[in-house]
């Protein structure tokens, strides 16, 4: 019996020790990622412009071009950050912003924030909805505080698996980043398969979407995004409930930014035919119409850049704007901004 337990201990240790090494490395990297990284960078400085949201805003806005276009001649060039990230939720943006303020309480004074109104409607999720995307627990785990973690664990509409994943991710970066590590490994094996089947050459070609913010452009991922776009559109079409704007996390983000001296704006981002389906119901059409007034009441500018996509070919994976069109969209957004600054 004693020998059994000693053997079991050795067996587990052989796995645990190298994993601990990886864990330490990932913990070190953690402080340079997403909001953590920027909070360090802006410890003693102020941000000019921040784009928040998911991968749709990440793909649509070329932040450096935007900064150049809105900079005034003779003055130092403005800085713009695009923190749009795939698989994110509004709660994660709020916690991320709080992290930046923790490090530098003045970081947002005079800053301009952009949140996307995709197809005319911004993110309508409330605190009742899930705060985390199963695929990317690190985006929440790295920022959530213990009282909120406890609240999350008590949420009735979240599965035990997700709760366990978040709790474990909060304490282990290896678990938090596990999904990404697995995707990365599979991507390398894809290249190996490509290499094997093409006589030692890698002929993989992606589509033209900006490859940042967790957006993959390889064939498999594009096919996956297309399927996801259809699924999401179908689900959004079925589960339509009227928006209670006061209960959205978005409102808290607006309040938080404004209370820390920032100016919040919304920018219209066009969508393809699939994603626009759930937005074309009477309920959503009315809400899209109402939102301009809501934004005004919240003290936010709502920009509608003079940009129209030519069709679904501008959305190679049915979700994200193509790379060539993102430049045109950015230019149009900058022009709208300059014409009526917040």
């Amino acid at each position, binding site marked *: *019996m004693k020998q*059994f337990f000693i053997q079991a201990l050795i067996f587990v240790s052989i796995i645990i020790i190298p994993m601990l090494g990886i864990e330490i490395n990932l913990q070190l990297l953690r402080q340079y990622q997403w909001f953590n990284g920027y909070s360090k960078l802006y410890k003693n400085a102020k941000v000019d412009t921040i784009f928040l949201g998911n991968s749709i805003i990440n793909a649509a806005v070329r932040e450096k071009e935007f900064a150049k276009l809105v900079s005034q001649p003779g003055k130092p060039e403005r800085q713009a950050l695009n923190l749009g990230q795939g698989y994110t939720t509004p709660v994660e943006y709020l916690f991320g912003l709080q992290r930046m303020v923790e490090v530098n309480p003045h970081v947002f004074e005079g800053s301009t924030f952009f949140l996307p109104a995709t197809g005319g409607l911004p993110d309508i999720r409330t605190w009742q909805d899930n705060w985390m995307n199963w695929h990317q627990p690190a985006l929440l785990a790295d920022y959530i505080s213990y009282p909120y973690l406890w609240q999350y664990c008590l949420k009735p509409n979240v599965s035990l*698996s997700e709760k366990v994943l978040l709790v474990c991710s909060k304490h282990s970066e290896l678990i938090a980043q596990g999904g990404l590590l697995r995707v990365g490994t599979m991507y390398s*094996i*894809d290249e190996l*398969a490509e290499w094997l089947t093409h006589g030692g050459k890698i002929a993989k070609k992606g589509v033209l979407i900006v490859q940042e913010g967790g957006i993959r452009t390889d064939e498999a991922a594009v096919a996956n995004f297309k399927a996801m776009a259809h699924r999401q559109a179908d689900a959004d079409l079925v589960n339509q409930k009227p928006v209670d704007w006061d209960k959205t996390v978005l409102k808290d983000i607006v309040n938080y930014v404004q209370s820390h001296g920032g100016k919040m704006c919304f920018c219209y981002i066009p969508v393809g035919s699939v994603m626009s389906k759930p937005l074309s119901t009477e309920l959503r059409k009315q809400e899209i119409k109402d939102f301009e007034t809501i934004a005004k009441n919240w003290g936010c500018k709502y920009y509608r850049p003079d940009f129209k996509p030519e069709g679904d070919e501008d959305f190679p994976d049915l979700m994200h704007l193509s790379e060539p069109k993102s430049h045109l969209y950015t230019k149009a957004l900058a022009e709208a901004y300059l014409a009526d600054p917040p």
Partner: protein
Amino acid sequence: MLFNSVEFLLFFPIVTALYFILPGRWRWLLLFLASCLFYMAWIPIYVTILFLIIIVDYFAARKIEGASGNKRRLFLMVSVIANVSLLAIFKYYDFLCQNFSEILQFLHITWKFPPLNLILPIGLSFHTFQALAYTIEVYRGNQPAEKHLGIYALYVMFYPQLVAGPIERPQNLIHQFKEDHPFVPAHVTSGLRLMLWGFFKKIVIADRLAMLVNTVYNQPNEYSGLPLVLATYCFAYQIYCDFSGYSDIAIGAARVMGINLMKNFNSPYAASNIQDFWHRWHISLSSWFRDYLYIPLGGSRSGEIVRLRNIIIVFFVSGLWHGANWTFAEWGLLHGIFIIIYLYWIRAGWARSLPAVLRHYLGLFITFNAVCFAWIFFRANSTADAHWIASHLLPLNNADKLGNLGLTGGEMLVTIVAVMILEFVQFFERNKGGVAFLEKQKLSTRWICYYTLFFYIIILGEFGGARFIYFQF
């Protein structure tokens, strides 16, 4: 609760640890409560249906034991009717209604049977068959009626095999719940090893192949030739790895606690004839049908015609057991026809002149392909889809479409390597099952194998949380 879920990852070690901490006389209660929790992870209220059927069968068996003559038969009928009614209401009522409505419509009679649209309790066919095995064995005098209601309830609800078998026999299982099972390191390692192997089959092979199979089988009209052939072969491996993976995890989880469940698979694709296949595939169900349907119908003792009729009945019922759909009925009938062809083939002795080795490999090739052909009917979403697929397998063209069937090159590579590992293990494991051959290897070899399987699952597994296919039955 799914075996391949985070919930089970917490549930299993906690229950197992408590099992060994508790004194023997309380273990049945722990396992019973754990089994209730396991079952209630889906639709909690459905546990009451289980309780109801447990109570009916418990008292029916007690009455059977105490009665004599026709009364015994009467109480057996009560149990059979209760179990079959449950299946009929939840599983077959809507199917029968739909078919009656269609027949009446064909006869220009307008009469609609309202469907119940009930959600099927998970694993219903498994535990009703296990409960039926108990009352039939008590009736036959092979098993004393269990006096302890809790132990009997545990026999029906024992969580490792509650929702997808193996469909146990009372003689094998009930006495084990009354025995004291000390902590035996050999049982623990052997059980955990089998569970690891089961997870490998499910998460790495079955769930990955499902992506390819679903792509083709959900829109079969868009394909013909090689993509259909590949998807069908892939389904053969998917369903084997899915179901035998589940059985391995179930048997392994029970073995850790010192409880032995019956073997459910024995390298079925290594069968050299269709009869042999059914001795190796879902053994607990095929032996159930043999003992409780084929033999009571007269088996092979009442002349040739009756024998053929019995074979067809058994396979037809076996097909419908899997689901209320004509695809399953066709699948069952097809297997019945294969068995009959095989029996006449043997009787004719045409293959006797061939060398034994050639005969073996030819048999293996024909059997595997016949089984794969039948899987088309099992997997297809409708009989129309099944007929389309079956009639468009040939010619073997459209090779250019093979690269675009829902799996990337890397995923394909990972799966091919995993299937090679599976075949390699099965080559060493003939007639033993699992990865027991590792026991004889050096410690370092064993550990390298465990680590390889573990990391293969963790890094290259498909964690979409897909259900086991047989849960729906």
